[in-house]
């Protein structure tokens, strides 16, 4: 104990002047001022660098925000007073960038159709459709190819299966030439007046060469030559043709026209989409879907009820067990205390999904340890019965979560003044009485916020549900993959990331926001109900 008290005094020998303080502000020691200057200097240097980079890449909005932030930091630390801000700023800045900003950004995503099939910009989508639509003419030969260059334009020199050398460029259909050089396999490799590109030069002009398309005849319908590796080319015809003016794709075989539907896809009159779409703003659509999607509608009430049940019961059981054990071991002369404590936090030290897997093995009705060894071969369907699966999930979550509560309670118990205990005991109060009347209320004052936080955590406790039951057993009578142990977040995960449309980040973000609103509102209300805030004033 002693060294704890002594150490800081030794290591932090700030030569604080003993002047009485003015205006409530402690005198700054030389070391303190130096530290402040250095830290602020480093911060400003980094900020200057960031601002410079932002200016270079013309990100003016972010530039403005960063500039304001930098100025605010300097103001906070250079002015007199405003002490709370000085202590809060570092943590809050991280919070703003990595949590608040992420939330804002998610909100933005919630108004788009970002997700599988709508993954990037329209230009990207068009390029990709064109790329995929360009099909090799069936049974056409493969041409040994050299890439030539003249006056900054590129040409393909190919040798036909008949041994004829032909040359062509983007504006110049393929025509027969007399090669000036041949490669080792007999293919034409050079033409008078053109420079042949070697491999290194090819690499430097990859984009131009891979996009080079040489018409094989004056008639564009015959197709064009393209090379992907600079050494072989094939004749391609486009299955779809893009008309930049009309902003439509036309199927060259059937004549079907696909036009921009304003929702990030090219759609034909009969409703068929081209494979690749792009990201657009869809307004409130994702939120509308949250309220109208039959996936979400059906079992929603059951899921919400269970989400609350799961979260509340998880907090209650883990807290009860954690507190009980913390009190049990909070005895100074208990032998083996350290040893017990270590073993008890072990579940917390293993990856949750590994634990989930082990437990699903243990709970296997036929081969699992619980039924086989503990219950003498009973065939209890721990994970497949609608009620028992809930019990199992709670039990496993208790196993996973009580070490946390145990640690926290052990810590909090230290803050209880021991004399209260002694005084009460002298008054003849029993252990249980002391606990319920004195210790528990005191503990709850500091732990209530944590219990609410733990509630929120379990409200979104994806791992334990997903690893153990995957949300199952499925509800009967619904066609959707939603089951008895599904909580909101697992249901949302399955709907936004798992069903027909693939990963739908827009919908996921919208639902994340809705879940956040629910859980934050419930938590804020329960704060009001607890004494936790009374203590804050």
């Amino acid at each position: 104990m002693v060294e704890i008290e002594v150490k800081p005094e030794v290591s932090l020998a700030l030569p604080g002047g003993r002047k009485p303080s003015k205006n409530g502000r402690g005198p700054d020691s030389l070391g303190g001022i130096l530290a402040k200057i250095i830290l602020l200097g480093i911060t400003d240097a980094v900020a200057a660098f960031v601002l410079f980079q932002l200016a270079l890449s013309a990100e003016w909005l972010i530039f403005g925000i960063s500039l304001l932030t930098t100025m605010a930091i300097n103001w906070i630390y250079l002015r007199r007073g405003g002490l709370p801000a000085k202590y809060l700023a570092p943590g809050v800045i991280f919070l703003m960038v990595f949590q608040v900003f992420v939330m804002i950004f998610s909100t933005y995503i919630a108004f788009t159709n970002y997700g599988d099939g709508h993954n990037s910009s329209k230009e990207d989508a068009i390029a990709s459709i064109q790329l995929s639509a360009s099909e090799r003419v069936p049974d056409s030969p493969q041409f040994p190819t050299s890439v030539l260059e003249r006056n900054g334009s590129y040409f393909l020199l190919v040798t036909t299966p008949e041994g004829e050398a032909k040359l062509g460029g983007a504006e110049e259909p393929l025509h027969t030439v007399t090669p000036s050089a041949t490669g080792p396999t007999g293919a034409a490799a050079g033409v008078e007046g053109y420079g042949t590109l070697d491999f290194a030069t090819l690499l430097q002009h990859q984009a131009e060469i891979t996009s080079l398309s040489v018409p094989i005849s004056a008639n564009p319908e015959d197709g064009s030559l393209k090379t992907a590796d600079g050494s072989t080319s094939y004749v391609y015809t486009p299955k779809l043709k893009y008309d930049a003016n009309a902003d439509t794709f036309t199927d060259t075989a059937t004549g079907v026209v696909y036009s921009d539907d304003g929702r990030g896809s090219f759609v034909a009159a009969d409703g068929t989409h081209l494979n690749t779409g792009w990201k657009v703003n869809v307004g409130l659509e994702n939120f509308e879907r949250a309220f109208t999607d039959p996936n979400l509608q059906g079992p929603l009430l059951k899921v919400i009820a269970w989400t609350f049940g799961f979260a509340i019961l998880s907090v209650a059981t883990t807290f009860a067990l954690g507190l009980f054990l913390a009190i049990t071991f909070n005895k100074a002369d208990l032998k083996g205390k350290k040893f017990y404590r270590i073993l008890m936090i072990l579940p917390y030290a293993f990856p949750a999904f590994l634990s989930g897997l082990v437990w699903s093995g243990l709970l296997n009705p036929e081969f699992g340890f619980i039924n086989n060894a503990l219950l003498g071969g009973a065939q209890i369907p721990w994970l497949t019965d609608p009620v028992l699966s809930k019990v199992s999930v709670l039990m496993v979550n208790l196993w996973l979560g009580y070490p946390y509560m145990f640690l926290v309670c052990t810590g909090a118990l230290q803050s209880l003044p021991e004399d209260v205990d002694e005084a009460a005991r002298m008054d003849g109060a029993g252990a249980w009485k002391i606990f319920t009347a004195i210790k528990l209320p005191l503990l709850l004052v500091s732990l209530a916020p944590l219990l609410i936080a733990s509630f929120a955590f379990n409200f979104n406790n994806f791992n334990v549900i997903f690893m153990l039951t995957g949300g199952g057993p499925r509800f009967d009578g619904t066609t959707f993959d939603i089951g008895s142990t599904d909580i909101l977040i697992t249901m949302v995960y399955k709907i936004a990331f798992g069903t027909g449309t693939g990963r739908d980040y827009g919908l996921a973000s919208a639902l994340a926001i809705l879940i956040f609103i629910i859980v934050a509102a419930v938590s804020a209300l329960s704060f009001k109900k607890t004494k936790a805030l009374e203590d804050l004033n």
Partner: protein
Amino acid sequence: MSTPTTKATATAVPANKASFGQWFKAKGWRHLVAIAATAFSIFPLLYVLSAALNPTGTMAGASSLFTEFGTGNFQELFANQERPFGRWFVNTLVIGTVTSAATVFLGAMAAYAFSRMRFTGRRVGLLTLLLLQMFPQLLTVVAIFLLLNFIGDIIPALGLGSQLGLIMVYLGGALGVNTYLMYGFFNTVPTSLDESARIDGASHVQVFFQIIMPLVTPILAVVGLLAFIGISSEFVIASVVLTDPDSQTLAVGLYSYVAQQRSENWGVFAAGAVLAAIPVMTLFLFLQRYITSGLTAGGVKG
């Protein structure tokens, strides 16, 4: 594994039969509870250990323990050049230590402000900190990816693939619950202590470092430990941010052993998980005396 030892401790004590009843009332029942609780804690983990020692690489068999014995999984863990387990171990230690130290520091500063200063927005601020952490980040990891992608364009050292960038993301969650934990504890330190120090001419910085911090060591240790455990098992964000195997953490790296359906290697994964638990246990062992050394033992009351 360790259960026999536990039992030995438990049964060895009541040798003195005369006071058994008394002993039991004072301590004996605690041992019973301890044995039950530790058994509950560790028996599922015996399966992990069993899988770690079983060369066939199966996991959930659970019908028999320790049917086969071998260190093959551990050898494979260290022999695999593509999956540098040693590096992962070091990375986890570094990221975990830096992040938890910074978390403790940032959290303590905030808790100090909330506990010792009165300012407008204090109640709202505290509540907001807690509420913000309720955002289901799992569903919005893509936003973190896009953010880091952008940051990486501006400051490459903080972008995707950078451990520093990951630490920054983790520090975004440094306040929140931790602040509450510490705030509650800070409040139990009598304000008379810092007031008298202020009268003696100490600055607020000195009060913070020299008066408050030493007295709240238990909660600092708890928060540090919780942060370390959280980070060493955090997988979702780390797997998005850390792309290069040499920079990955244990949670991300080990997962690659079981990520591929039908060719999972649970044996090696379990072996890795067993070893990965060692730093957490060591840290706990080290911090335990701080956690349980409370206010009670010090000279605070005086």
